[in-house]
C-alpha cells in the first residue's frame, strides 16, 4: 500500500518533507514544462527548425517534454513510484512496447502512401 511514500524526485535531487509538499512541487514542475512548450509553440525559434531523423527538432523537443510530463504524472500523481517493481513493469513496459510497435507500423505506412502520391502514380482517390 502507498501509505509510505517515497518523497524524492529527480533521483534524490529534490527531497520533500511530506507527500503534500511533493504534490505541489510536481505541480510547479509540470506547469513549468507546459509553459516552456507553449512559449516554444508560439515563437518557434529558428534554431529548432533543423530536421533531425525525419522530423523538425522542435517536434522532438515537444515529444520528449510530453514524455517527461507523462512520467511525473504516472510516478507521483498515480503513485507508481510507491508500487512494486512487478506491477510497475507489467503496466509500463507492456504499454510502451505495444505503442512503439503500433506507431512504427502506422507512420511507416503513412510515409509510404505519401510517396506514392508524390511520385504521381495515383493523383488522389481516397
Amino acid at each position, binding site marked *: 500500500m502507498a501509505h509510505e511514500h517515497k518523497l524524492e524526485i529527480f533521483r534524490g535531487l529534490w527531497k520533500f518533507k511530506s507527500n503534500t509538499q511533493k504534490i505541489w512541487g510536481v505541480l510547479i514542475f509540470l506547469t513549468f514544462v507546459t509553459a516552456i512548450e507553449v512559449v516554444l509553440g508560439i515563437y518557434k525559434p529558428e534554431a529548432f527548425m533543423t530536421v533531425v531523423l525525419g522530423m523538425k527538432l522542435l517536434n522532438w523537443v515537444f515529444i520528449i517534454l510530453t514524455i517527461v510530463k507523462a512520467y511525473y504524472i504516472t510516478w507521483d*500523481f498515480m503513485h507508481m513510484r510507491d508500487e512494486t517493481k512487478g506491477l510497475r513493469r507489467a503496466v509500463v513496459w507492456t504499454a510502451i512496447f505495444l505503442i512503439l510497435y*503500433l506507431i512504427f507500423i*502506422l507512420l511507416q505506412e503513412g510515409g509510404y502512401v*505519401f510517396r506514392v502520391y508524390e511520385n504521381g502514380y495515383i493523383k488522389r482517390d481516397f
Partner: protein
Amino acid sequence: MSTTVVSTGTEGKTWGGGNKPLEASYGKMMMWFFIVSDALTFSGFLAAYGFSRFKFIDAWPIADEVFTHVPFLHGQELPMIYVAFMTFVLIMSSVTMVLAVDAGHHLNKAKVTLYMFLTIIGGLIFVGSQAWEWATFIQGDYGAVQTKGGNILQFVDAEGHRVALRDFVVADGHKDRVQHERKEGLWFVSEGTLPAYTVEEVLKGLKSHENVLVRTQIINEAGEKTVLSRAESIKQIEKNGKLVVEGANLHVNEYGSPLFADFFFFITGFHGFHVFSGVVINIIIFFNVVLGTYERRKNYEMVEKVGLYWHFVDLVWVFVFTFFYLV
C-alpha cells in the same frame, strides 16, 4: 453452516488465494490494467492520426492557424493560449485529486470532501472549455472554397493575412437555390444548411478585389502555405471551385483536409467523454464521502481508484495537447 470450510490451508502460499499479488489490492490492480488497455485505445487513435498526417505531410493544416480563439477576446489571433489554460485546469484538478487521496490516507473526511469538490469543478471547467472549442471550430471564421478534388482554397491579401469571404464576396439577392427539406417532395432525402455564398459569387468577388489572392493547402519549404499569383488564383477558382465551405464538420473542413476535422472530433470527443464519465464517477464518490461510507469502512481506497482514472484522463490530454496543438 458450521460445516462450511472457511480455511483451505493454502493461505499465504502464492497461488492459494487471499494474498495480494504485487502488494496491490484487487481493485487497484484491475484499474491499472484497465488503464493500460485504454491507453492502447488512445494510442491507436493518435497513431491513426499520425498515419493520416504522414500521408498528407505536405498539405496538413497548421494547428496554430486553426485554434487561435480565446473566449471574450474577439478577433485576436492568440494561438495556444486557451488550450494551455485548459491543460493547466486539468493538471490542477489532478493535483486536487491527489490531495484528496492523500487526505484519505489520513482519514480526514473534511479535506477529502473539499478536494473532491474542487476536482469536480476543474473537470466541469475543462469539459465546458472543450465544448466551446468545438463550437468555435464548427463555426469557422474565414470560409474557403473546396475544389473538385477535395482540396481547400483559402483567401489572403497581398501581405499574406487571411481574408474572410464576407469581406469581399457579395451574396446575390436573387438566389433561386432553396435548401431542400423533407417536407418538400422527396421525404427520404435531406440536405445540410446551404453555404451563404455560391462559388460564382466568390469568383465575382475575387475578380473585383485586386488584392485578394488564393492560398492552397501545400506547405512550402519555409513551412508556410503556398500563395498563388493573381492570374492563377482566378483560374483555380474558375476551373476547380466546387463548394463554398464555412467551418468544419465530418465532411468538409475550411482549414484543410477533412481528415483533420474528423480526427479532431473523434479524439478530443473520446477524451471529452472520458472526462465527462470521470466527473460523473467523481460525483458518485463525492457523495459517498459526504455520506461517510468510507469513514465507516476506515478506508478511502475507492477515492484512490477513481483518482487513478482521473489522472489517466489528464495523462491522455498531455499527449492529445502535444499531437494536436504543438507538433
